[in-house]
């Protein structure tokens, strides 16, 4: 399998000093990769740097064999990198339909994006709650519905890789199951996914690979199933599965 995304020796940060200190990772074509790690390990900074919201100071980001590190965020979107931010992930003062229209109009740049239906049949099956709410302001949706809309927007143009920042954050258990189910089905359609997650156990169940970050570096890259089985890693980053009260706060990375 070839890699759809390669991150090589990535340095980035705010102000003086780097938060990312040489991150190396790959996303194989057609796989789901989950990044876990404690607070302050640099997960969000990594996502911001990948999408271009934060400048790459050193190293390279290679998407489908081409370096994208000098591209602006809109250019990276059109190169095939879609992004679902954690919060503020929809235009709240625009309707659901307008959110989807914008995704169609500006993300595609000639890469498909059929006019006419706001959601393809495939997407309607994936997000059945959205069509009935087209006229509603996105700000009036529930948290779960907003996440679904953000997800749908990111998928209007089939991306090479979908980057998601804590897709299950703040969602009710029902939506949490739904969203991971969506990720799985999207992956089965052939989209590679890179996500940062706090609900590590649920996320790893649908992942192929797991990357553990700490202090701005990758500490471990392994098969997701193997990480789920690692006792010491579980107690370090995932929280003990059975004795949930143990270091649960340390797990929420």
């Amino acid at each position, binding site marked *: 399998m070839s890699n759809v995304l390669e991150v090589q020796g990535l340095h980035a940060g705010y102000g003086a000093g780097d938060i990312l200190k040489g991150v190396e990772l790959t996303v194989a074509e057609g796989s789901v990769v989950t990044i876990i790690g404690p607070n302050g390990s640099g997960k969000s900074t990594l996502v911001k740097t990948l*999408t*271009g*919201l934060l400048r790459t100071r050193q190293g390279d980001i290679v998407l489908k064999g081409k370096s994208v590190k000098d591209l*602006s*965020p*809109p250019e990276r*979107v*059109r190169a095939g990198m879609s*992004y679902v*931010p954690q919060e*503020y*992930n*929809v*235009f*709240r*003062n*625009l309707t659901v339909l*307008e959110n989807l*229209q*914008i*995704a169609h*109009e*500006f*993300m*595609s*740049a000639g890469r498909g994006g059929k006019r006419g239906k706001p959601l393809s049949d495939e997407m309607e099956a994936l997000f059945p709650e959205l069509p009935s709410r087209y006229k509603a302001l996105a*700000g009036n949706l529930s948290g779960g519905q907003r996440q679904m809309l953000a997800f749908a*927007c990111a998928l209007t143009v089939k991306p090479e890789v979908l980057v998601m920042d804590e897709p299950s954050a703040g969602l009710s258990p029902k939506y949490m199951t739904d969203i991971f189910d969506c990720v799985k089905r999207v992956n089965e359609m052939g989209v590679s996914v890179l996500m940062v997650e706090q609900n590590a156990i649920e996320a790893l169940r649908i992942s192929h690979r797991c990357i553990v970050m700490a202090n701005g570096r990758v500490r471990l890259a392994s098969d997701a199933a193997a990480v789920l089985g690692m006792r010491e890693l579980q107690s370090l980053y995932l929280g003990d599965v059975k004795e949930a009260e143990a270091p649960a706060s340390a797990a929420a990375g």
Partner: protein
Amino acid sequence: MLQTLFNGFVTGITMTLPALAVTLLFGVLKFANFAIGAMMTVAAYMAFALNAQLGWPLLPSTIVVAIVCGLLCIAVDVVTFKPLRDRGSITLMVASLGLGFVLENIARLFYGNSARSFAIEIARPFRVMDIRMNKEQMITIVVSTVAMLAMYFLLTRTPVGRAMRAVADNPSLALVRGIESGRIIRWTWFIAGVLLAVGGVLIGMDRAIEPPMGSSYLIAVFAAAIFGGLGSPLGAFLGALAIGIVSEMATLVIPPNYRIGIPLCVIALVLIFRPQGLMGQAHIRR
């Protein structure tokens, strides 16, 4: 009473275009542009040059000036505001004050301080239901209404309009949805320039063309935009009408000289009781 209400309505509708320009610029660029008064003045003088000095009819003069003014606004942004964009909204606001002085005095340099007027026939006022109105007021109402409808169409039915609202709503999300902010900023300035040019001509038609004509509307226009909720186009429209009517009606109880205080009181009351304005959303600071 009805007459005052009508006058207030006309005053208000004259302000809808500049108030909309203020609110669009604020929404997309996140700063209060105090140069809009002087921009209207300059536009009115440009229309005066074409109309009164070159003898063009007022309508084509206005169209040409609107386009030129739109392009000038883009140029002004590149020269003045773009280099300061990362310095924060206060710096940009102060820069706009300075720009306003410069523009107003450029107009003064060419045309002096004396009041001028467009070469249009003065028509006799007429009466409808005992309300006195004149042709200029009718033109103002028609032009403003058409412009507002056009803006509504632009903002809700075109990709550029939707993108402007998206950038105003959430700039970083707009970037990762593929919207080039530079292009949207240029469009916003162009549209604001067109609105200000038309507004300047309407004001020049109603009153006289003189250097402080635009800045005399500044406080009322800002009051309208703030009352409506900065960043909300519909709010700007309703706010302008409300400020116009309230200011005019107030002259029934207070001396007309103090009329200018009314918008200031409105600003103060809005900021105390409903800081986000009539239609505005509570601002999320990140």
